[in-house]
């Protein structure tokens, strides 16, 4: 279970992107953070992943503090992340990308092979394309590869930064179907997205982030009502 407490992230000493953010990501459930553009969602994910250093606050995973460690150390602590941007290794094959995902397991050949097979079972589209260069895959498949690769380290929690970004609606459905499968496998998922509909469908818990502050959160069913008003406000703002 991930606990974020009073997290504050600054940009260039003056601007606070995240202000005293606190939230809880329960085990084996999907927790989503929604919010308008510029709310700080990506920053939140990056801070939990270790790519950004917070000014203050703490991040705890299963009772162990993980803030303060570097991104690569955090993988050992059980964090897996799928970045918003394209992040496959373009010149390497799908297979090599996946093997690199299993970097943690590099000393244990048998285990690595087993995990690779398990992951490929979950992502049959990738199984068919093992020897292709990752850069030649379509956007949706690259996203799949990124997710599969992150799964290779057998993370306790998977962070996803706007998994639908830059994808066609069909591909977005495809990705969320994949997230569903992961959800069924009892993986703890922390997800931020601008695509509210898909995101909310997949989520068990929802938090709302606006201008760096948590404006509310809880079980999806409980807060659905007040959410729809909020969303109407955002949509209105974005349309104007």
């Amino acid at each position, binding site marked *: 279970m991930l606990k974020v407490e009073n997290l504050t992230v600054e940009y260039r000493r003056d601007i606070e992107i995240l202000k005293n953010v606190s939230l809880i990501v329960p085990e084996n459930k999907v927790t989503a953070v929604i919010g308008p553009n510029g709310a700080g969602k990506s920053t939140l994910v990056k801070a939990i*992943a*270790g*790519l950004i250093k917070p000014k203050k606050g703490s991040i705890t995973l299963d009772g162990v503090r993980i803030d303060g460690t*570097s*991104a*690569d*150390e955090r*993988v*050992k602590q059980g964090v*897996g*992340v799928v*970045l918003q941007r394209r*992040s*496959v*290794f*373009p*010149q*390497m094959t799908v297979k*090599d990308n996946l*093997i*690199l*995902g299993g*970097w*943690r397991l*590099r000393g244990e050949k048998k285990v690595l092979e087993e995990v690779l097979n398990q992951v490929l079972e979950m992502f049959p589209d990738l199984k068919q394309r093992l020897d292709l260069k990752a850069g030649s895959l379509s956007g949706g498949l690259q996203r799949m590869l990124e997710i599969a*690769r*992150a799964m*290779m*380290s057998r993370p306790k929690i998977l962070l996803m930064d706007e998994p639908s970004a830059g994808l066609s609606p069909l591909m977005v459905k495809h990705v969320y179907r994949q997230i569903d499968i992961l959800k069924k496998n009892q993986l703890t998922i922390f997800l931020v997205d601008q695509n509210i509909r898909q995101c909310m469908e997949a989520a068990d818990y929802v938090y709302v982030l606006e201008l760096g502050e948590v404006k509310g959160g809880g079980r999806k069913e409980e807060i659905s009502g007040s959410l729809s008003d909020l969303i109407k406000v955002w949509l209105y703002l974005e349309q104007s």
Partner: protein
Amino acid sequence: MLSGAEITYVQLFLGALLLGGLYALVAVGLALIFGVMRILNIAHGEFIILSAYITYWLSQTYRLDPLLTIILTIPIASLVGFVTYSAVIRGVTKSFDAPIVSSFGILLILQAGMLIAWSGDPRSIVTPFTADSLVLGPYLLPLVRLIAFVVSVLALTSLHVFLNNTHLGRAVKAVSQDSEAASTLGIPVSRIQSLTFALSTGLAGLAGGLLSLLLSFTPTLGPEYLLKAFVILALSGIGNIPALLIGGLVLSIGETYGSFFLGSGLRNVVAYIMLVLILLLRPAGLFGNLKEREV
């Protein structure tokens, strides 16, 4: 039956071929550092020449077989590189081109150091087999060049295998393609970068050692080899070891024939002209998407 002139041309070609392998080895160190860290190590030439001096000095002082000394030089060069990187280049701000200025400072320090330690007089290593050649029909293959070629190709092949077939090697490639993504997979990017720098200078160490058998050297030879490495990178890109080998061959052949027809003093000018030609004929830039700073 080939005429005298034709034999000369083929002889030149063979000599250039053998040298090309060494040139590729010279270039690969620069490619590694640039590929993984986007730093152009201006002092690369100095590491090579320093290694030549180390080989020279060790074999003179301890009366060791030069080939053995080359093997000793490699870890020494690696260590020097590692220390240099950790102390000087790593911590430097990324503003403008601070790492390059840093490496420029290293260039000065190394060059001056060599001048102080060994003066500007040319040095060379003479071995029992320096003058020997393998005879192949009407052609002579100088033994030292042959050794340099074989060792270089072996080293390059090993590097290729390392990068593509081992976990650590793949991690190095990953860091060069996307260091942030690599860190999210648990790869210790900073350590890999240090390792790469040490690997690069180790390869420079091998190149310098081989070079010391081939020609006489002075402390100011560094920039010349930097230029050679750079031209080869321009020709071959940085991602591809077999391409580097070809690039090394092209440069070596160009230099050999160029200096044959134009005079040996203009050898380096040949390299520079090649560089300008490449720039003019490939306006899309040398290494494509790696040329520009990301927005």
